[in-house]
């Protein structure tokens, strides 16, 4: 195997850390590819000032019911965030799979608000457009946001319809039997719920697209 | 003679807090805060006494009159006094003093009595920071300046009265 010495110099310039060769994958991270303040900025935005005090014990991963499906365990996300692996973190599935069950939040021996950290990372990923285009989870969040912005309340039937339209319209067909069953039992409504004082909602949520990127 | 508060009132005024700490608990706690590098506001100046019971209310009045914007008194927790009950005596005196200060027009938050044990370095930080902010909100007390003003007023008044008397006599 020939070592691509020439290439590594270039890599230092361009953030391209995974190089596929015939049989092997070369992985390396150069300090210049990192966003070194990322961790501190996330900590600040997530009441997780203690993020930096993580001792990498892995309690969060072990207690997480979704860790089996994550590309990086929550512990790794914390480590990577702290060390400035911004792209990997914001591109990861982990932050979207977090179901906000707060299990890690209550068990963390350093009392890091991990759920809040995940939220901060989700916001960052949405703002910087990092998440995969048709990944339904962030789209659900966005559709939900719009729905409530409009009416002040959420109507589940309409939320699901708009979600499927944006992600996978065929899925709507798949779900239609379930939908029908729910409808027959009066558990899905067509009429939209809304608050009377929609003006108050609009006043509160004035800066719809606001928020500073990290 | 102007106090620092008044000198710098025009530019950036910083609250001045005089803190009387007992040797056994609160002063030790302040040392602990130091050893633990618990950063806090540089506005308090500590005077060490053996016991909070040694603190004569006059010390506090004197501090205010010399230009302090706030006074903090720190002693051991009830039941923990190195001298058995000095802190209770301090508490009794300070309750009375608080009423007096109120009558004198000195705001409540300018004087604070705190029980801080030798292990509570963190508390030193919190209390000093909190108090600095509270006093900052209240603004300068500026008693020396007020004294001067009152003195001038009195002089003027005296002169007017004397002047009138002289006029009567004349």
């Amino acid at each position, binding site marked *: 195997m020939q070592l691509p010495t020439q290439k590594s110099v270039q890599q230092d310039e361009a953030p391209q850390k995974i190089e596929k060769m015939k049989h092997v994958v070369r992985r390396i991270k150069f300090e210049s590819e990192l966003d070194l303040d990322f961790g501190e900025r996330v900590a600040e935005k997530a009441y997780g000032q203690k993020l930096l005090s993580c001792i990498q014990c892995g309690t969060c991963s072990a207690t997480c019911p*979704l860790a089996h499906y994550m590309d990086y365990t929550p512990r790794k996300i914390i480590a990577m965030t702290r060390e400035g692996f911004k792209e990997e973190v914001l591109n990861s599935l982990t932050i979207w799979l977090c*179901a906000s069950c707060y299990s890690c939040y*209550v068990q963390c021996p350093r009392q890091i608000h991990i759920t809040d950290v995940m939220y901060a990372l989700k916001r960052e990923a949405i703002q910087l457009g990092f998440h995969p285009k048709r990944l339904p989870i962030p789209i659900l969040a966005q559709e939900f946001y719009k729905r*409530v912005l409009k009416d002040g*309340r959420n109507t589940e039937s309409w939320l699901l319809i708009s979600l499927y339209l944006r992600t996978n319209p065929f899925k709507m067909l798949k779900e239609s039997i379930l939908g029908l069953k729910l409808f027959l039992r009066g558990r899905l409504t067509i009429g939209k719920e809304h608050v009377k004082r929609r003006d108050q909602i609009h006043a509160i949520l004035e800066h719809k697209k606001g928020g500073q990127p990290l | 003679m102007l106090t620092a508060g008044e000198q710098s009132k025009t530019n950036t005024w910083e609250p001045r807090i005089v803190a009387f700490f007992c040797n056994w608990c609160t002063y030790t706690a302040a040392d602990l805060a130091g050893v633990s590098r618990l950063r806090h506001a540089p506005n308090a100046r500590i005077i060490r006494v053996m016991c909070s019971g040694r603190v004569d209310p006059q010390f506090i009045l004197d501090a205010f009159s010399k230009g302090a914007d706030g006074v903090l008194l720190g002693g051991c927790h009830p039941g923990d006094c190195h001298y058995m009950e000095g802190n209770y005596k301090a508490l009794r005196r300070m309750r009375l003093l608080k009423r007096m200060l109120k009558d004198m027009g000195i705001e409540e938050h300018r004087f604070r009595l705190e029980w801080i044990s030798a292990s509570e370095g963190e508390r030193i930080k919190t209390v000093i920071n909190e108090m600095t902010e509270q006093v900052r909100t209240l603004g300068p007390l500026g008693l020396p300046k007020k004294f001067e003003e009152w003195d001038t007023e009195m002089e003027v008044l005296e002169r007017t009265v004397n002047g009138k008397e002289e006029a009567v006599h004349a």
Partner: protein
Amino acid sequence: MKYLSYPGCSLRSTGRAYEESIVAVFKALEIEYEELKDWNCCGATSYVSIDETDAFALAARNLALAELQVAEGTINLIAPCSACYLVLSKTERYLEDYPDVRTNVNAKLDKAGLHYNGRVEVRHPLDVLVNDYGLEKISKRVKYPLKGLKVASYYGCQVVRPFAKFDHSHYPVTMDKLVQALGAEPVDWPLKTRCCGGSLTGTTQEAGLRLNRLLLKEAQKRGADIMLTCCPLCQHNLECYQERINRIYQEEIDIPVAYFTQLIGVALGLSEKELGMQRLFKKPSLEKFMHPKGEMAHA
């Protein structure tokens, strides 16, 4: 004590039976409450993924409205949906703990002519029924003790973590005690608070279904006749996907999933209609466990 209620969006659709049974049970127990006027969505887990201050402000509007509706004292605001309960409690707590949040949120509320002063205490109906009303009083009112019924109480995640004050975050017992008070038998199982995946069943179904499969299987394995929930989303996930789970994973799961308030209603002798039982996919057959109180004495 009088309560304000905050139904939340889910109780108006998928969770209708939950609201109906709460109304019926509260009425039967003579617990007075009124609905929070013009409440809005709490924001659930989605809002905070977009904008945190907006999320807190949106939730805080409800708290501010509660203060407008009740002029004095501490207001007990009942939020039956776990997500609403968590979001409102969290908002309440963060407003208290983080001065920055308080300032920013009140600035937003200000634009809508509202202000929040910190008088609201967010409560869950489970907490209210067990800790305010009391188990003894409930069991006195029970007409049909559910003798022999084995119940797996499923608390889900957000109702006990991390802002709830009424029970342990991983091993809660409040619902189990309630089940006992109804004459039934609580099943001790280790997954009481393991997450059902929440909205993942709608977005990342593979993961969502697996989580529910584990919960349902374990409850069934431990001999439960019924699973009780206290959250509309948990109920929906656990009940509505059973067929699909059986199909995909070749399982034989067949267990009714009801709201805890429905079970109380049954024991109190309320009608199925009042309790919204007809809205369940799998109506639990409870008749064989219902023994009128007189019979119990002979047993």
